[in-house]
């Protein structure tokens, strides 16, 4: 029986964590994810979970403790944002290469400097090559649903990789929305018990983890890790199918919104997809054939599927809520363009940097993007393939 609630994104994710009832959480406060360990500490303090909370002295130690805990055979999680994720950077790689299925609630926030506490994706995009699965949410319902699905993906025998469940700082994390929660038992049964095969506290035999790896083996280990990430795509879809049976909510690698017959489309991640859908509706009402592709899974990157979905479009705007400082555009722009090229698809593309450091994204801003796409279609060429949206003069 579904539970109707009104929750912020942070409280929604904290609820998913409570329902999962993991063994260990190690976390350090940082805006805007702080509420997650706060809510969780209250669950611990009131006996709502069996979890041990480790109040570490930094995010680096948070991920270090998570690695120690998960390697010991305990289901482990953490939450962080921005510079906290950046401080974990070294440890993110180690968690992934040790094949530890830790879950991390990432509440996306701009990176310093200058210091800025508001939403953009530069934190998790900076971690895109660390070997973590990355799943993004448009709203609090998706953040909750994605977290409920996290361990089924990360702990799968063909995957065994850590997973980052991302939501937009403040916009999703702090805004209170209607949400439908699953029953505690439903989540418990869906997620299941964690029974790893190899772990430090295995009484049958000891184990050593984190070796010095010579050139004779390192490359093979990295290839195995790459294979696990490739395997994750199928597992993500299988878990989503099971989740749909339970919740009647359907998830894929990405969401296509009015994309079937679209001539122009935007590709976007996170909460601004909601704003963009309003723009699509408004323009559709005017008879314009516009559509949207919202990325849910960024790692593994579903390149072939994205190219297939976009191949009928004449022009596409790829929206990056972060900078890459490569003088060409953002990471999503680079990856979508590469996907289109490999597939031999020929839509014109333009890559926008938008909404960084919490710059507001309005329906009319997105309508401007569709207008620019019309101009590209009319001109048959792209001037300025790398642009900023809503930049002050």
């Amino acid at each position, binding site marked *: 029986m579904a539970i109707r609630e009104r929750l912020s994104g942070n409280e929604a994710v904290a609820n998913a964590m409570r329902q999962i009832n993991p063994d260990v959480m190690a976390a350090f406060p940082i805006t805007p994810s702080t509420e997650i360990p706060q809510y969780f500490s209250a669950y611990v303090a009131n006996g709502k979970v069996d979890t041990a909370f480790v109040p570490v002295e930094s995010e680096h130690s948070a991920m*270090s403790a998570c690695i120690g805990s998960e390697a010991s055979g305990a289901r482990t999680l953490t939450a962080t944002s921005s510079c906290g994720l950046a401080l974990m950077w070294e440890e993110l790689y180690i968690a992934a290469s040790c094949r530890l299925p830790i879950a991390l609630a990432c509440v996306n926030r701009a990176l310093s400097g200058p210091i800025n506490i508001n939403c953009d994706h530069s934190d998790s995009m900076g971690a895109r090559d660390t070997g973590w699965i990355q799943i993004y949410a448009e709203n609090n319902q998706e953040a909750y649903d994605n977290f409920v699905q996290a361990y089924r993906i990360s702990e799968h025998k063909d995957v065994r990789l850590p997973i980052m469940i991302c939501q937009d700082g403040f916009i999703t994390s702090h805004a209170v929305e209607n949400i439908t929660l699953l029953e505690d038992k439903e989540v418990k049964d869906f997620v299941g018990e964690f029974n790893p095969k190899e772990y430090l506290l295995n009484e049958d035999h*000891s184990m050593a983890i984190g070796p010095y790896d010579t050139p004779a083996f390192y490359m093979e280990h990295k290839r195995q890790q790459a294979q696990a990430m490739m395997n994750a795509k199928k597992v993500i879809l299988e878990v989503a199918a099971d989740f749909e049976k339970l919740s009647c909510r359907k998830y894929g690698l990405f969401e296509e919104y009015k994309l079937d017959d679209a001539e122009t489309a935007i590709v976007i991640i996170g909460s601004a997809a909601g704003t963009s859908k309003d723009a699509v509706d408004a323009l559709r009402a005017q008879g314009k054939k516009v559509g949207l592709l919202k990325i849910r899974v960024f790692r593994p990157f579903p390149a072939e599927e994205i190219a297939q979905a976009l191949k009928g479009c004449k022009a596409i705007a790829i929206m990056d809520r972060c900078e890459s400082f490569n003088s060409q555009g953002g990471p999503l722009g680079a990856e979508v363009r590469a996907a289109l090229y490999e597939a031999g698809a020929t839509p014109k593309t333009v890559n926008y940097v938008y909404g960084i450091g919490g710059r507001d994204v309005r329906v009319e801003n997105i309508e401007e993007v569709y207008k620019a796409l019309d101009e590209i279609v009319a001109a048959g060429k792209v001037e300025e393939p790398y642009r900023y949206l809503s930049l002050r003069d």
Partner: protein
Amino acid sequence: MANFKEIMSRPERLTGGHRMCAGCGGTIAARNVLKALKPEDKAVIANATGCLEVSTFMYPYTAWKDSYIHNAFENAGATLSGAETAYNVLKKKGKINSTYKFIAFGGDGGTYDIGFQSLSGAMERNHDLVYVCYDNGAYMNTGIQRSSATPHFADTTTTPVGSVSTGKPQNRKDLAEIIASHHVPYVGQTTFIGNFSDLHSKAEKAIYTKGATFLNIMAPCPRGWRYATEDIMHVCKMAVETCYWPLFEVIDGKWVLNYKPKTKLPVEEFLKPQGRFKHLFKKGNEDLIAQFQKEVDERWEQLLRFCEE
């Protein structure tokens, strides 16, 4: 404490065949700490990046009989905090029956310096674990660079003696005192003396005292200190007899001096066998030795006050 014969007859938990240098103090420290484990108890060992780690666990071989985790350079404290927390939860849930003890090993670089915050956090949270620093007074794994444990005037590759340099310009940090200020239940400082009963007894106390405990073991490095490898026991003895490296414990906040030399030897006896201090014995550098002696004296006097000797 188990008697000497019993301790020495316990099976090795860090086996031979690893790649540490002959006569390495770090390996002697680790093997002898592990001797203090009761044979029936299991252990999880965390190791900061360093000589001990890269030489004992090179894929696909490990020299460690117990479960072992190497994470990174600066986080053995936090890593083992996570493992110990996992143990408590899984034990409570009835998923584990055996008794596990948790032991971290780090060199002075991974402990005094880059791992200091992680260590301090683990101590303050009072996890039931032992952190063992094998203090060889420099970053030996990367090639003898100075650390905050390096003694004054030591010749290292980042404090080289030169025409305008007399080696490391600063004094060393007193880590055992800093950890004692965390008000943890047990801190011990030791080195290799006689039949190792001081080390074995402190290791046993550290491992079997509930809560966070810390052992600081002076573990000479023949390459970095430049003494004849076979002289390690003499170097350790001189460190203790000159009061450069006193043997003491802090038990529930009470400072206890374990050994007071009848005649405190001049610090030259410790410095002389070591190539890293060779320049101190050049003509005209007598005042440097006097400065070194003064620092040793002041710290010794302070320790006597702490121990109410």
